[in-house]
Each structure stands twice: as structure tokens, then as C-alpha cells.
């Protein structure tokens, strides 16, 4: 009631206060030294990285292709699509490879509703990948360069990864990019096709995300700089 002189404590103040009381700390008190996480980048030569990446991803049911040049990326993509429709992201590498020019491939949406509608209908989504993680067979996509839905709504995903972006694993990723939030609102590691074992522990692919993932690893020194 107004005028009773009681000041209402907000949940924020109360929780912070409870935390401090529980810990015997005062507001404004600094923190103790924080222990460093173990980050050790293994030595894996580039070619071995690609082989390891392929091994790991294929064990999960993904497919890995090797392209010596961008022109080959286009051919491999056309071979996978076999004329199917696809939504292609705005990654300059894909543009350079001429993928938006393939029959049935659409790209560049002015607004979100049309992007959504296209992703919901297309059998394939084609994106770039900012990084590969060899030890786990993962690719990293970030919202700064990719629409999030292209690698998510279509039942199959094709990603093009420059070989120079193939990192050894998580440790190297976090040394390269200790602050992923600085660059993008969303950073996603994708490790194989969508899966579930929720019914009788039986493996099912493509529950919500893509059932199939193809990664084309391309040698390109001069193609793009991100």
C-alpha cells in the first residue's frame, strides 16, 4: 500500500543479497583468481586434420567430399542436388563457386518471411562453414555470415568449408575465438545429422534438423577472406 513507507525489494536485489549472505561476501567485493581452463592445441598436420574430420563425421552418418578448386565445389554440389531445389546462403564463397547459378537454387532474400518460406519448402539448404573441428567432425556456423534457418529447416544440408578453416578441435577454436559473442548473436557447432534415440534407444535421423549433412572441404587460398 502506498504511504506505508515500505520499500519493495526487487527479486534481483533479493537474490543478489541472498547470494552474498550465503557466501559471506559484500556488494562490490572483487572476485578471487579464476582458474584457467585446460587449453592445449594438439599438433595435427593439415592433411591429417581433413582425414580425421572425415572419419569422425562419416562415423555419424555425414558425408565428406574433397574439392581441389571452387569450380569442383559447383560440380559436387550439382551432383548431390541432382536437380533438386535448394536455398543457398549469402556466403561470398558460394557465390564465387557459382552455386546460386545452379538450376533450382535460390538465394538472396529481401525479408525474413520469404527466407522462412523458402527454407521450409526446400529439400536442401546450402551454407558456408566458418570453421571445421577435426577431432569431433563438427562445422561451426555463425549468424554473422549465415541465416540460421538454412542449416536447420531443410531436410538436407550442404556446407562448404575452406581447408584453411579446418581447426584441430575445441581447444583451437576457443584460442582463435575466445569471445564468440563479439562477432555474432549465434555460434553453432554442428556435429553430424540431427538425431534422436528417444524411442527404445533406437537411432533415428532427421528428427527436427536435417537428416543428411554433406560437407565439401575445398582447397582455396585466394577464394575469400572472412
Amino acid at each position, binding site marked *: 500500500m502506498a504511504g506505508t513507507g515500505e520499500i519493495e525489494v526487487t527479486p534481483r536485489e533479493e537474490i543478489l543479497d541472498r547470494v552474498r549472505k550465503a557466501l559471506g561476501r559484500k556488494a562490490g567485493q572483487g572476485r578471487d583468481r579464476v582458474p584457467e581452463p585446460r587449453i592445449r592445441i594438439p599438433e595435427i598436420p593439415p592433411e591429417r586434420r581433413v582425414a580425421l574430420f572425415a572419419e*569422425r563425421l562419416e562415423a*555419424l552418418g555425414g558425408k565428406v567430399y574433397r574439392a581441389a578448386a571452387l569450380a569442383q565445389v559447383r560440380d559436387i554440389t550439382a551432383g548431390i542436388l541432382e536437380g533438386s531445389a535448394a536455398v543457398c546462403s549469402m556466403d561470398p564463397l558460394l557465390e564465387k563457386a557459382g552455386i546460386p547459378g545452379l538450376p533450382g537454387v535460390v538465394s538472396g532474400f529481401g525479408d525474413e518471411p520469404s527466407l522462412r518460406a523458402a527454407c521450409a519448402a526446400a529439400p536442401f539448404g546450402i551454407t558456408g562453414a566458418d570453421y571445421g573441428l577435426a577431432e569431433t567432425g563438427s562445422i561451426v556456423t555463425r549468424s554473422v555470415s549465415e541465416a540460421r534457418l538454412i542449416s536447420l529447416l531443410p531436410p538436407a544440408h550442404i556446407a562448404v568449408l575452406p581447408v584453411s578453416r579446418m581447426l584441430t578441435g575445441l581447444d583451437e577454436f576457443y584460442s582463435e575465438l575466445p569471445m*564468440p559473442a563479439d562477432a555474432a548473436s549465434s555460434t553453432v557447432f554442428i556435429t553430424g545429422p540431427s538425431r534422436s534415440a528417444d524411442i527404445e534407444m533406437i537411432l533415428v535421423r532427421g528428427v527436427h534438423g536435417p537428416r543428411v549433412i554433406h560437407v565439401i572441404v575445398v582447397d582455396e587460398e585466394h577464394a575469400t577472406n572472412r
Partner: protein
Amino acid sequence: MLMKPEQEKQIRQTVADPKIQLALYSATARLKEKREEVVAPEALPEYQELRTQANRIKKHTLENLDVYLEEFEANVEAHGGKVVYARNGQEVTDFILGLARERGVKMLVKSKSMTTEEIHLNERLEHHHLEAVETDLGEYIIQLAHDRPYHIVAPAVHMTRQDVADVFEKNLTDPRTEEPGKQAMIARRNLREKFLEAGIGISGANFLVADSGAVCIVENEGNARLTTTAPPIHIAVAGIEKMIPRARDLAVFLKLLARSGTGQLLTVYTSFLSGPRRGGEADGPAEFYVVLMDNGRTRLLADAEKRQSLYCIRCGACLNACPVYRKIGGHNYPGAYSGPIGAIITPQYQGIAKDPWLPFASSLCGACAEVCPVKIDIPKILLDLRKEVMEDRAARGDGFLERKAFQMYGWLTRRPKLYALAGRIGARMARAPGAASMGPAAKWASVREVPLPARKSFRDQWREREKSK
């Protein structure tokens, strides 16, 4: 006694149900085996080092939690998001309802979150006519069946494909199928519409990352990505204990979480989300909220000994390792959390008086502590809680006979002559037919295998041998 008769009956039913026993045994065995493969020294030589580190980082974070909460909040806001503090489930619900009302939202989608399970968020929202649709396949089945999750990482582990077929047939219009692959596609189709229509997506958070103002969410299906991407509003609901200091700490935690939970190196999707869509980004939510919930956690935080219960990253490994969970399953544990972790956090969240038997639901074999990726000393906490339960009962005058019996025993052992005599009398009485089911000890003995005392005690045998030398 500690357990209510209905609870005891329910547990006996579970143990006697061959269908559930088979499902439980095989699922936990699979998860256990897969975990063992990927944490073996050949596969991950640094495994023990990572566990020690994870434990240290969690310890440090909780000991300085106020600083990290404020840092997290500042960083979420710097990225255009908003942090909401909630003292309990009611305040979480009120916030979501208020926002839904303001934005005219009628339906929301949810990805798997034990925290919202803990506060019965779905029931609360539905009570106010806000439809909340679970989208994880297991959780979807559970929701349609009006059931409760059975396992932290495998919610529908107790159901067979026939059960799923029944549930779908009753609730959906798709033709009946008993093939898990086809059942999953039915869920995909039905839920796809929901994702695209929902006004709000609610997720949990595996980690809150202070230096980034980000939530990190791991999953295999893609439903968490859809929940946090498709609707115009994303709300992440998390307990305050989910905090870690820096993004790069994930190098430690991510290596442990999937390996311990499902035996994967990483889950299929690991999302690191900070704030709403930014300028130049093509999609993603326009609004981003993180609800930081207390709901009993600060009480736990005050206990320096048991504080480590809050290190838990909900991998589920202790459930799969626990001989008790593997027999009695998830539904016999009250609250959202089952298995060893449930046995230690439920009593601490809700108070020990409500389900005093919980800390006793363990053989103290130590398997849980051995597999825990953040090294929570679960058996020790169980013992501490047992002590608290007994003290609480003593204070209320319960458990009088048991306590008196042990006191008398203590008195006797200090008097050797009397002890020997009492032993001889006791042995003769105990060997009498039906002795174990009579008198005040009957209840105690009914759940224990009481060995018959030897006809002649060790003391007597020894004395005779010495004499005949």
C-alpha cells in the same frame, strides 16, 4: 518409518514389472557402456584432469557467484537482451505470462529443460490458457501422455514403441505406426507447424557464460535450435548455478558433458546464443530474455559442505551408474530430478522433512561419484543428509525405538560379560521360527536380509578352542 506405504508399494511394482525393468536395464547399460568407451584413457587421456578442472571452475564460480551474475547481466544487456530475476517458479511464470499477454502470444514452443520441469511451468502456463508445446521427441511423447520424464537425458526411456503408437493414436490424426523412425517423422511434421507459428520459444540453458552474456545449449535433434531461432521471442530459463566465467571454459565442459551423458564427443548441436538478432543478421529472435531463477538454490549455496551439489551439469551419468536408479527407475523419485543427483538436490530444494527416505535410496556404493564429470561427492552428501534427517526426526521425537536400540547396543558393547550373555540369549531368540517378522524389528528386517546368527558365537568357539589346546 521414512517412506509412505504408497511409495513403497509403487517401488515394489516397478521392481516387479518386467517390461520396465528390461527397458531400464538395457537403456542405462547402453549409456554406461558408451560413456566408458569415450572417457577411457586411450580415448581421452586428459579425462581426469578435465574433471578436476571442471570441479575447480564450478567451485570458483559459485564462491563468487554474485560477481558473475552481475557480469552476465551486464553482458546480456550490452548485446540487447534482458535479464529477469525470479525467486521461484511463480515469478518465472508471471514473467512469461505477462510478456505473452503484452505481445498477444497464444502458443509457445519449448525445448527440453529440467529447470522448467522443476517448477511445473507447462501446467502453470496451461492453467492460464497459454499453450506450451514440448518439442524434444521424448518430451513431446511424455507431454501427450500426461506423463513425467523418466530420465534426465532420456525422458521416455520407460515407454515402448507400442506405448508411443498408442499415445500418438489417441492424440494425433496420423495413421498408427509402431516404427520408431516413422513415429519420429510424425512428430517432426506436427511440430514443424508449431515452431513456425509460436510467438515465444522457451529453452533451458546448459551453461550461462558470464563474459559473453550468452547461454549455451546442447542437443541432438535440432528442436532447441528451432525453439531459439524461429519464434520472434526467445526466453531462456535457468537456475543461477548454471554460470561459468568464460566462453573458453566450455573447452573443458563441452568435452565432458556429451561424453558423460550419451557417449558422444559432442552433441549434434551446440548453440552459443548471446542476445537477439543483430543488424545485418538474416534471422533469429528479435527479443532475447534470460530468466535467472533461485527457487531454493541460495539456501543450498549457504551450506559450504553441500554447496557442491550445485556443480551438476545434468549429464545423467550418475543415474546410469546407480544400482538403485537402475532398479526403481525415475518415477519413484519425487520432483523433477531422479537418481543420485535427485536424491541429493530434491531434499535440499524442498527441505528434508518432505521425503526423508530420499537420501537413504542409495547403497553408498560410490558409483555415482566415480562417474560424475564435475566430481560431486554424492555419497558424502547423502550421508550428511541422512544425519540431518535423523536429527530432524529426533527433534520431533520420531524413530525413538531404533535410536534406543542402538544406544543400548553401545552400552552393552562396553560391558563384555553382559554382552556375551546377551549375545547368547539373542542368538537363540533370533533362531526361533518367524523371529525376524515379529516385534518392533519386523519392519526394519522386512527390507533387509538379516543373516541368522551362528549357533555358537565366535567368542564361545574361541574360548572352547583355547581350552582344548
